[in-house]
C-alpha cells in the first residue's frame, strides 16, 4: 500500500512539473500582453516598452519561467501584474464561492444520478426505465447557459423564490442562508446537467454489475436480483462513481467558468476569464497551477481510495 502511494505521489509531482511548463508556455502563445492592456488605445510604443521593462516582461522566457518556479518552491505562486495581490490570497477569496458551489453541484448531481441511474438499469426495457434514459439523454444535451437562464426566468424573476444573480460579498458566509440561497440556482444548473451525464454512467455501471459473476452467484444462493445487486453489486458501482466524480472535479471548474458569468458570481471561473482577458499572465499561471494541483490531488486520493476498497487491485499487487 505504501509503495503504491509513493509511486502515485511521484507521478503527481512529475505531472505537476510538466503541467507548470505547459501552462507557462501556452499562455505565452496568446497574442498581446498586459503592458498593451495597461497602455490602452492611447498608449504610445515608448509607454508600452517602459511598462514592459517595469514588469520584467522583456526578460528571456527561460529566466521568467525559472523565477516563477523558484518562487513556487518557496510557496510564492506569484502575484498580479495589475494589482499586486498575491495569487493565493485571490484564490482563497474566490474559493469561498466556487468550492461551495462545486460541492452543492456535485451533491445535486449525485442525488439525480444514483437513484435514477440504478432504477433505469434495473428497469431496463420497461417504460419507466426507458423514460429515465431518454430524459437523461435530453438533459445532458442542454447547454448550461440556457438551463441557467431558464431557471432564472422561472424561479427568480417569475416566482421570486431565489435571487437571480449575485453573491452577498459584503457579508459572505457570515450570513449562511443568504450565501446559500444565491448559490442554489447556479448549483442546480450545473448539478442537473452534470447529473444527467453521470446518470448514464451509473446506469451502465449497474448493468455491468448485474451481469457480474459475484452478483449472479449471490442470486443463485437465494437472494432476489435486487437484493443481490444492493448487497454485492452496489459497492462495485460505488467504485466506478468515485472514479468519475474525481474526473468531474475538472468538469465542475469548467462549468463554473460559464455559470459564474451567467449568475454574476465572484468566483474562480469568472476571475480566470477576466485575468486571461487582461493578460495578467503571472496571476493566471499561478491560478492554473494551483487548480491543476487540486485536480491531480483529487485523482491521487481517488486512486488510493480505489486501491483500499477494491480487493481485486490489492490482490493484483
Amino acid at each position, binding site marked *: 500500500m505504501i509503495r503504491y502511494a509513493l509511486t502515485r505521489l511521484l507521478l503527481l509531482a512529475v505531472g505537476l512539473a510538466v503541467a507548470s511548463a505547459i501552462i507557462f508556455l501556452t499562455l505565452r502563445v*496568446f*497574442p*498581446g*500582453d498586459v503592458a*498593451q*492592456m*495597461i*497602455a*490602452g*488605445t*492611447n*498608449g*504610445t*510604443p*515608448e*509607454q*508600452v516598452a*517602459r*511598462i514592459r521593462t*517595469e514588469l520584467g516582461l522583456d526578460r528571456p522566457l527561460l529566466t521568467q519561467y525559472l523565477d516563477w518556479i523558484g518562487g513556487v518552491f518557496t510557496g510564492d505562486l506569484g502575484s*498580479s501584474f*495589475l*494589482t*499586486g*495581490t498575491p495569487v493565493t490570497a*485571490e484564490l482563497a*477569496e*474566490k474559493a469561498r464561492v466556487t468550492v461551495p458551489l462545486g460541492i452543492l453541484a456535485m451533491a445535486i448531481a449525485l442525488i439525480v444520478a444514483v437513484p435514477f441511474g440504478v432504477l433505469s438499469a434495473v428497469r431496463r426495457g420497461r417504460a419507466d426505465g426507458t423514460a429515465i434514459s431518454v430524459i437523461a439523454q435530453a438533459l445532458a444535451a442542454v447547454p448550461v*447557459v440556457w438551463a441557467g*437562464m*431558464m431557471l*432564472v*426566468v*422561472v424561479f*427568480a*424573476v*417569475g*416566482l*421570486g423564490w431565489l*435571487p*437571480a*444573480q*449575485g*453573491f452577498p*460579498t*459584503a457579508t459572505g458566509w457570515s450570513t449562511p442562508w443568504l450565501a446559500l440561497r444565491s448559490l442554489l440556482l447556479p448549483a442546480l444548473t450545473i448539478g442537473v446537467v452534470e447529473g444527467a451525464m453521470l446518470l448514464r454512467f451509473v446506469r451502465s455501471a449497474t448493468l455491468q454489475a448485474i451481469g457480474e459473476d459475484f452478483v449472479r452467484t449471490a442470486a443463485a444462493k437465494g437472494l432476489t436480483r435486487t437484493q443481490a445487486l444492493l448487497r454485492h453489486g452496489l459497492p462495485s458501482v460505488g467504485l466506478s462513481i468515485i472514479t468519475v466524480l474525481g474526473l468531474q472535479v475538472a468538469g465542475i471548474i469548467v462549468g463554473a467558468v460559464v455559470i459564474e*458569468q*451567467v*449568475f*454574476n458570481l*465572484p*468566483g474562480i471561473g*469568472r*476571475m480566470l476569464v*477576466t485575468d486571461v*482577458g*487582461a*493578460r*495578467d499572465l503571472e496571476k493566471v499561471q499561478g491560478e492554473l497551477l494551483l487548480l491543476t494541483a487540486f485536480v491531480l490531488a483529487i485523482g491521487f486520493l481517488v486512486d488510493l481510495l480505489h486501491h483500499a476498497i477494491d480487493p481485486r487491485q490489492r490482490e493484483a499487487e
Partner: protein
Amino acid sequence: MSFPIRRAAFLAAGLTATLALAACTGQAPAPEPTEVDPDATLRVGLVLEPTTLDIRRTSGAALEQVLVDNVYEGLVTRTPENEIVPSLASEYEVSPDGLTYTFTLHEGVTFHGGGELTASDVVWSLDAVVSDAAFVGHDDLASIASIEAPDDHTVVLTLSEPNQNLLFTLTGPAGLVFDEGDETDLKTAANGTGPFLLDSWVQGDSITFQRNDAYWGEPAGVGTVTFSYIPDFQAGVSAALDGSLDVLTPVQADLASQLDGVNGFELQYGRTTDKYVLAFNNAVAPLDDPRVREALRLAIDHEALVEVIGAGETQYGPIPSLDPGYEDLSELVPFDPERARQLLAEAGQENLQLELTIPSFYGTTISTFLVSAFNDIGVELTVEPVEFSTWLNDVYTNGDYELSMVNHVEPRDFGAWANPEYYFHYDNPQVQELYASALTEVDPEASAELLADAARLVSEDHAADWLYTAEQITAVGPGVEGLPADSLNSRLDVSGVTLAH
C-alpha cells in the same frame, strides 16, 4: 474602450419568457418614495470593471468613470456635456498669449489620509506625469515647460507653445492631484480629495465608496455607493429586476424594454463620445485607394444601422456632437450602393474580398450588418472575432489588418487622424497642419473651426467610416434623483445623487 452589443439572438427567448412571466405575476406599483435618506446606500450596476485602480498609470474609461470626481479631483473638471469647470482650483486665468495658466486653489482642502492640499502637491503630481512616459497623458502634457508654486495656494503652468487641449487634458487622469510623497498603493487603494472615500474593492465583484464627511465642498447626497460589476447584460437586467440595484448603466438596447416602467425603473438616454469606428487600413492595398474606401462607406445605410442597434445617432465624420469641431457631414456619404458599385468598377475591384477584425465582445449585430451591406455591392467580407488583447496586439500595435471595428470612447481624440503612426495609418499633411494650428490657436471658437475643417478633410478622404455615436441607456430606479445623463461611461459623478425611500 467599448460597450459591447452581443448575444442578442441568444437572449431573445429568455427576454420573451421574462416579459410573459413578469406580466403574469403583475408586480403591484410600489408607493412613490418621497423621503430622502441622506445616509442611504446607492447601488449602481456597471458592466466593465477596472483591472487595477492605478489611474495614474492605467488607461481606460472604466477607471475614470468611477474614480474621477468621486474619489480623485483635479484643478479643473468637466460637466457631462464636456464643458470645463473649476474643481480644486477656485478660479483660473489664461494669459492672452495662451502660454501662462494661473490656478488659485481652494483653501481648507484635505486628502482622505489627512494631509492638507497645497500648491506643492499639485506641482508634484503634474511633474510626475510630465517627466515619466509611463503615466497616462504624458504626451498630452508635452507642451508644459514649467510648473511652479509661487505661494501655497497658487500654481502657475508655463507652456512652450499654446495648447487648446491643455485644460481638457487636466480634467482627465493626467490632471488629478495626489498628496506629495504619499505611499498609498494606488493599485488597490486610494487617497484623493473627492466627496467619497474608497472603502473597498472586491475584485470581480464590486467597488464601495463611503461619504467623505470632511469634504471641502458640498457633501455627497448618499452615505454609501456600491458599484457592482455585472459583465453579462442579461444578468444586469435580472439584478435590477430582483431589486438588487438602484441604477443600471449601460442597459443593452434590445433588453431595455424589460426595465422600462417595470418596478419603478425609468430609462434615461444619454449622449456619449463613443464612436463606433470602422477603421480602414489606409496603408494597404486595396484600401489605400480612396475610391474603394468611399465605396465601402456608400454601401452602409447608417440610419438603418442605428435603428438595428436601437440607441445612437449617425456620425459621418471623426468628431462626435459633444466635441468641439462637430458639424453634420452626412452629405459626404449618402447611402448609395449603385454609386459604390461604380466606384469599385473604376478601381478595378469588382471581386473584392476583405477581412474585418473585431473584438468578440461587440457581438455579431454590427458585423452581420456589414457583411450584408458589403455583399450588396459585391464585396465579400469575412469576420474575424478576436479577444481584445489580441486586437491590441495585432491591429493596434502591429497594424496587421484590413478592416477593424472598435468603439473609441475618449472625447477629443481627433489627434489619431493627425498621427500617421496610429493604427488607421491615415497620412494627410494638410490635416496634420490644421490639427496643429487648432491646438496652438488661443481662441476656442477659432480652434473649433480649424478642427471642423480638418474633420471634413478626413471624412472626404474616407479615412474610415464612423458607423454611429452610441447613446447610453441608463435605468434609474425609484427614489433616485440627480443622476447625470450624458457621458456616463467615462464619468459617473454620483456626489449629487440622492435616494428616497
